[in-house]
């Protein structure tokens, strides 16, 4: 699992003790690079989030301060957006899980008999990665616009009110988030289900368990690490995404998420402290939620 790919335990025992000068030379450039362009930017965000405008300065001119009220201000102004982001992200994650589990189960367990089918289906699952994320989202916008045959068909069947819209609504944004992040859910689920020992399922049915009971008592617990990876891989980007919710894509005026607000504050109104404070809040909430979730699901070793 990618989240355990950095687990240090196993590598440590194997790693032979050798000239650490070579190790230093190998590590130094990359680590310095990440410090300079990943860690320093985070510190820079924290500093920026406490800045205050220079008195009589131009728009976008700030000086270092400890104006912690910035945080209170952004929560007051954008509380709704923060709340909405996590709401949308949680719903999209649940839908993606429900969509992906049967698909991943079919590819990883049922299709084992036909390796060719298995490989072909995996290629199809990752196929959306090879076409622009933005174009995929715009394709759905056209396919689900008011004039599209899907929406006009639903209206003709009276399943939708004649004056209702789909694009621009929260449902459309959640739909877009779900669609765009489905492969992140499917791939980790597949890679745990692929290793599922099917003899355990047979044992379940031999012990007179109903198929549904075997599924919830055997299959689901055994695929927990895939579920956790998939949920994190879907939830984190969905919470920070601002393309689906953008007005030119699937969103509308009432669907703006925290990412949209960070973008407009940083790039349009040049309110850097607000954008920085929102970024820090986003990251902090994600870290807390991820930690609690991982602890709850009993897979601490993943991180």
């Amino acid at each position, binding site marked *: 699992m990618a989240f355990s790919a950095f687990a240090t335990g196993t590598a440590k025992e194997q790693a*032979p003790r050798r000239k650490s000068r070579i190790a230093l030379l190998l590590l130094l450039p990359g680590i310095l690079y990440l410090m300079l362009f990943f860690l320093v930017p985070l510190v820079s965000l924290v500093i920026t989030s406490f800045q205050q405008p220079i008195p009589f300065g131009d728009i976008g001119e700030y000086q270092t301060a400890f104006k912690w009220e910035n945080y209170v201000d952004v929560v007051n102004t954008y509380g709704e957006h923060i709340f909405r982001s996590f709401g949308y992200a949680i719903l999209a994650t649940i839908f993606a899980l429900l969509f992906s589990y049967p698909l991943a189960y*079919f590819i990883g367990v049922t299709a084992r008999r036909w390796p060719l089918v298995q490989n072909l289906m995996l290629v199809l699952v990752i196929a959306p990665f090879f076409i622009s*994320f933005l174009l995929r989202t715009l394709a759905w916008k056209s396919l689900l616009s008011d004039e599209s045959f899907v929406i006009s068909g639903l209206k003709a069947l009276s399943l939708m009110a004649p004056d209702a819209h789909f694009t621009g609504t929260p449902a459309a944004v959640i739909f877009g988030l779900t669609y765009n992040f489905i492969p992140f859910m499917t791939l980790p689920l597949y890679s745990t289900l692929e290793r599922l020992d099917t003899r355990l399922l047979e044992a379940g049915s031999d012990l007179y368990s109903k198929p549904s009971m075997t599924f919830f008592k055997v299959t689901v617990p055994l695929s927990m690490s895939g579920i956790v990876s998939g949920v994190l891989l879907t939830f984190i*980007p969905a919470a920070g995404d601002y*393309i689906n919710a953008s007005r030119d894509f699937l969103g509308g005026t009432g669907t703006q998420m925290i990412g949209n607000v960070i973008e407009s504050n940083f790039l349009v109104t040049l309110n850097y402290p607000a954008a920085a404070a929102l970024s820090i809040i986003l990251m902090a909430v994600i870290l807390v939620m991820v930690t609690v979730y991982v602890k709850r699901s009993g897979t601490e070793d993943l991180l």
Partner: protein
Amino acid sequence: MTLQEGLAVTDAVTTPRQSPRRGVRLGLGNWLLPLYAILALVFLLIPIAYTFVFSFNNSVKSNIVWRGFTFDKWLNVCDQIDVCVAFGNSLIIGVTATIAATVLGTMIAIALVRYRFRFRSAISLLLFLPMATPEVVLGAGLASEFLGAGVEKGLGTIIIAHTMFCVSFVVVTVKARVSTLDPALEEAGRDLYGSPNQVFWRITFPLLLPGIIAAALLSFALSFDDFIITNFNAGTTSTFPKYIYISAARGIPAEANVIASAVFILAIVLVLISQISSAMKRKKLAANGG
């Protein structure tokens, strides 16, 4: 491809596969699950088909209404010069960032598997965090650093940003390969009086090459499709995804669909070739072994 997509791919690639075993009987009726899987895949592919079909649209300005079939946009892609410039920039950024990230990440991966050193867990955390951080935060952070340092945004800052988020993915992908390497092979090289240089370039590097190539392809895909981090650090420089974002309001020209479709076809062909060649290699090995 976005960062998390990359992570999901690495996930599937680096997890060892088991030999196929007989599948289980379906409880839900034998046709329900296969039918669902096929429908689910069709659903995933709908926007791709749409993008491809509309690359043949004889569109005038925006590409929303179907106005008839034409090869024109495929033959004269660069009539929309902005699309081509943006595409060219994306290629330059993708190639440069891929080379830089692949070199940096491969070195780290070798060090992580082969050497002992202090601060191992701190370094692992530093490598893991960029993959778990939302892209808006990565983008805004770098932009605020550049702002504070007075760096002008442009092609250079985009390359710096892309290299940063690609390094971790290279490390995960190459590390998986390094740990499957048999140290005995290198020992044999040393026993035969190979210099450390010779041992590395004649034995270690060729064995690592498939992992390094996979990592480079992943980096390129991540860089090529990145929008959020780019948008914060591009200044006025255009990239292919940025071009699409900006033109979304007034309509995307069909030429953008042409480029996206061409890239898609190329990527799928590459994937299929690698799948087929590895399947053939397995067959050959099995034939030689048996």
